[in-house]
């Protein structure tokens, strides 16, 4: 029984649960600064979650068990993914449970049930959100897979622990295939986490909602779970990107010094990613729904170019 590994797992999940809202707070703060407003503070998401947890739940009269089950499922999947992705260390007992494709599948099941929950109430908002979300997800899948394929070509594996180890021990940093795959991954991450230019996370206008439309009916602790899971999903996608493309700093073994160092590196990288995210969000506008085919087509093209560069140039 690898106690050190279990301890690191618990530490990772705790970091995920604790730092997910903090990262969103950082992103919102940067956004306010860039727009010349004063922000609500770095800790506001915690206060929001606490408020929601203490409130009562109001369900629609015809809400079924699927509606009540979905927030728990989405939260559970985020926590489970947090135990699988190497955030602090590669030495995780749960790491062989899933490779990158299984992770994509886990997020897919969360999305499936969220879409069902949107259809459950029987209003036009929910159906609209579900329809749009599933369409966008199906367009993003080929690009995601091609990006994974390119990364796995270079590292000869789809297991994240292995990818981290190969990149950390390898010499070649400048590879066009990885650069293209990284760009494609950025597009896909923006799509999957519902940021601008795909979906506006702060909107409540029915013509512009995608993710918000599906969860419009939720209240109380259900909404708290879903919001928290959304924050964790953004955190996890960033961690996935870091593990696949820039994993320097993640501890190779389980010793404490390495884990602490990995934690510091992680905070630094998150800070930088937050700045990058805000640059994208303030620089671009949300795209029309049917323009997203071009956006995701561009992501697919970049990933394909990455794959082709691997064979042609390397």
């Amino acid at each position: 029984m690898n106690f050190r590994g279990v301890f690191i797992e618990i530490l990772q999940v705790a970091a995920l649960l604790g730092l997910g809202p903090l990262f969103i707070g950082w992103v919102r703060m940067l956004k306010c600064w860039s727009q010349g407003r004063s922000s609500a503070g770095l800790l506001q998401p915690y206060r929001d979650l606490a408020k929601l947890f203490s409130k009562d739940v109001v369900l629609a009269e015809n809400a079924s068990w699927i509606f009540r089950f979905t927030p728990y499922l989405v939260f559970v999947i985020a926590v489970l993914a947090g135990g699988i992705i190497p955030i602090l260390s590669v030495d995780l007992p749960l790491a062989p449970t899933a490779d990158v494709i299984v992770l994509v599948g886990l997020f897919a099941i969360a999305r499936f049930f969220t879409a069902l929950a949107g259809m459950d109430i029987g209003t036009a908002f929910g159906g609209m959100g579900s329809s749009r979300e599933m369409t966008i997800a199906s367009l993003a899948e080929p690009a995601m897979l091609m990006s994974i394929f390119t990364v796995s070509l270079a590292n000869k594996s789809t297991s994240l622990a292995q990818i981290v180890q190969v990149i950390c021990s390898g010499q070649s940093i400048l590879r066009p295939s990885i650069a293209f795959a990284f760009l494609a991954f950025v597009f896909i991450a923006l799509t999957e986490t519902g940021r601008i230019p795909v979906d506006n996370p702060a909107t409540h206008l029915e013509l512009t909602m995608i993710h918000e439309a599906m969860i419009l009916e939720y209240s109380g602790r259900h909404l708290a779970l879903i919001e928290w899971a959304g924050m964790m999903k953004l955190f996890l996608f960033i961690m996935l990107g870091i593990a696949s493309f820039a994993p320097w700093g993640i501890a190779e073994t389980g010793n404490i010094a390495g884990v602490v160092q990995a934690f510091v590196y992680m905070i630094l990288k998150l800070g930088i990613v937050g700045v990058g995210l805000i640059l994208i969000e303030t620089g671009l506008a949300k795209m029309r729904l049917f323009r997203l085919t071009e956006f995701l087509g561009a992501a697919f093209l970049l990933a394909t170019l990455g794959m082709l560069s691997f064979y042609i140039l390397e």
Partner: protein
Amino acid sequence: MNLQIAAQINSFLAAFVLLTAFAMLAQRRVYGLIHLFTWQGLFLSINTALVGYVASKHHLYISSLLTLSLKVILLPYILHVLIVRLKIRREVESVMNIPLTMLIGIALVIFSYHLTAPVRELSTLMTRSTLAVALATVLIGLLMMITRRHAVTQIIGFLAMENGLFLAATSATYGMPLVVELGVALDILIAAFIFGIFFFHIHTTFDSLDVEKMARLKEGD
């Protein structure tokens, strides 16, 4: 710097040239096309200088400077002036929809990879793998000329083809003799001037530069 890092940077630059070629296929705005063309020229000139440094062929430095002045500074300026004078609209339409054009572009890349495979086996140069990218850029430039309806985009497609040829020369034989390169550069410059003159005439006659409208210039109608 050692050979390995130079080879990696060379691959990177070739990949970016290919990326700009695809981006030009997808781009809708005329100013965007000119900017992409400028970037392509820039990557090309840096690549030429790098190959010159590694292979110790000093005439490639002169080629690189020539490319820089011509393709990054002079030609975009000429095209810019052209667009302003002709009061061309900002957006250009294409014959086929963009995703289909992209798929054909990818097919062309795979095709040129397949075609240059024998050269890759026999060549000993560091840049042998970029030959496929160069051939693909030429073909994509031709595709751009086919799928666009506006005359200015067709000239940019022609210039992109020339970029591809230049890259092919660099990667297959470490550059052409300097005399040939000077001659080609001069030809490109003259071609740009001639195109400009023709555009003025066409615009005055047809009041538009949409090549679809010129389809009426045929025998049986």
